[in-house]
């Protein structure tokens, strides 16, 4: 067991940290206030190779390991998890294509994303089907060699800027995945949703009205869509957990910086045990969340089943981020409750980690389902 980073990993982390300090953190508050999509920042991230990094090498990508990606994601989210989500949103929709796409589909949809900055979106959630993906009601009716898609997709990250979507639709009783170009006639993108946090991230409704999709854009066999959508999460959940770890790290750093300089009762704030213990707890929880995250990512990179570990990491890291953000605000006192300090933004941003890509309760259900198959825990 070796906890040291390789020189390549260290270099990648340093590059992501520099990018965060230079581009993300200074613009975080402005994007949070305006809700403007961070296109210029994404352009710079694209230039520096921080986007689409997991595309396989045979299609021109870096085929970045999930573990390495987690380290990068943690750095980016330390600056602003909303901007980090905008940068990393492609990964969620690209992975179904990497996992189940044909060579032709990979060449048509993945390779061009390395040449110029474009976005794609994972369109599975619907107004009546969130955690329970099997309830998806969007239909894909076979008409000759094409499919006709009808339905409403909801809370689609990068939905306004995507040039194609991964869409899960019902073909009879089963679910099937499709790659749907965003300029297909019949696709209507809704306005940006005003969410509690992550304002820089673009979340919209996407309506499909008689959208014709050729059979060549179907991902895998008919009825395999649910499996593809779920398998994707084994790849992406460690990354989401890493994003939550970024929030925890930001909360800890801000609280630490404040506590070391603010004076109360003629001494530094950090000299009060009540405050210093909060920081100690935050640091320990961050490390615990990191180790769960890294293990889930490492298992995936080793080709092993990581469903339980990914669920554990995602649940735990999200809860740690939420509590760290709240504790950060507590350390900052009244200032933590104002919009002028970054703590309140962290609280708003952290909450979504307990909800998206499988709510905390779903993660616990996955863990229990794995436990049920075990005779004893070693």
């Amino acid at each position, binding site marked *: 067991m070796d906890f040291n980073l390789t020189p390549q990993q260290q270099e990648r982390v340093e590059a992501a940290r520099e990018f965060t*300090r230079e581009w993300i953190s*200074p613009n975080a508050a402005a994007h949070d206030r305006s809700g403007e999509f961070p296109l210029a920042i994404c352009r710079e991230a694209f230039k520096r190779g921080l986007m689409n990094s997991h595309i396989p090498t045979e299609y021109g990508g870096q085929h970045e390991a999930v573990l390495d990606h987690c380290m990068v994601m943690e750095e980016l989210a330390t600056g602003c998890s909303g901007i980090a989500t905008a940068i990393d949103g492609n990964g969620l929709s690209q992975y179904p294509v990497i996992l189940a796409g044909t060579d032709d589909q990979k060449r048509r949809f993945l390779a061009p994303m390395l040449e110029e900055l474009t976005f794609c979106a994972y369109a599975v959630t619907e107004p009546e089907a969130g955690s329970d993906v099997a309830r998806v009601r969007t239909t894909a009716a076979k008409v000759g060699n094409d499919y006709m898609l009808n339905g409403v997709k909801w809370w689609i990250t990068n939905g306004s800027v995507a040039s194609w979507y991964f869409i899960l639709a019902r073909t009879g009783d089963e679910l099937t995945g499709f790659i749907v170009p965003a300029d297909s006639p019949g696709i209507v993108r809704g306005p940006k949703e005003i969410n509690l946090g992550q304002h820089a991230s673009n979340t919209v409704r996407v309506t499909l009205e008689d959208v014709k999709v050729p059979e060549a854009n179907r991902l895998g066999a008919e009825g395999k869509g649910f499996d593809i959508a779920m398998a994707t999460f084994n790849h992406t959940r460690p990354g989401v957990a890493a994003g939550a770890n970024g929030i925890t790290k930001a909360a800890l*750093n801000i609280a630490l910086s404040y506590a070391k300089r603010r004076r109360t009762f003629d001494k530094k704030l950090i000299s009060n045990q009540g405050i210093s213990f909060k920081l100690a707890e935050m640091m320990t929880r961050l490390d615990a969340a990191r180790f769960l995250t890294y293990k889930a990512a490492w298992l995936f990179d080793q080709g092993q089943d990581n469903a339980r570990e990914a669920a554990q990491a995602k649940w735990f890291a999200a809860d740690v981020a939420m509590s760290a953000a709240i504790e950060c605000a507590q350390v900052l006192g009244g200032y933590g409750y104002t919009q002028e300090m970054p703590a309140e933004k962290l609280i708003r941003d952290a909450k979504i980690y307990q909800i998206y890509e499988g709510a905390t309760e779903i993660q616990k259900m996955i863990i229990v389902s794995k436990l049920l198959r075990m005779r004893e825990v070693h």
Partner: protein
Amino acid sequence: MLADIRRFVGRISDRFKRGFYGPTFRCPVCHFVLAAVDADGNGLLVCPVCGAVIEIEAVYGHIVPVVLDMELYRPQPKLRLHPMATHLPIGLFPVALLGAVTLLAATLLQRLGLASAVPGGRASVLASAVLVLLVLSVGASLATLASGLWDWNFRYRRRSYRQIRLKIACSIVFLAVGAGAIALHASGLVFAASGLMHLDSAAGLVAALAYLVALGANMVVLATLGHLGGTLVFGR
């Protein structure tokens, strides 16, 4: 359309602000936008609006301000010359610009053979009034600059603030461009004896164009000065 213009102007001003102010943060007490580069070598900064003594530290690119003290009993000048002087150019200059634009419209209407917008030879009176207004506003801005520097010296203790630097620079630009516009007006290159503009000759056309551009540019500078002054008084 209006929203597009506003967005376009906002984008330009945002780009300028990013370049000029660098990383910024809001004063935790009065919410005034402060530039991190204005902090001294110890990372300390006094908010020019509320007097909060702030220590700043950049953490992962996030600026974390900590309020250490409040600067109470700041010196106030006995005679508040700057606030009084500053409203003269702000009040007079836009009227001068309006007069000049009216004279341009009158000249164009007359050239088109339509009735003059300023009938009965009153154009010359209006042109003279414009000149007087220009002289008064630019002259008053000299007093504004001097009293502003006085205030900066005593009230703000000559501390470096981006906003005040920009105000000083804008005041000098306003003075220089305003003096140029007065010289053009008084030289007779722009206006004929009738008070209408010389648009027949190339020289007259160029002079009129330069004059109007100078007035328009100065209006933008004046608006910026007013905005900056307002934020320094009232905060965010």
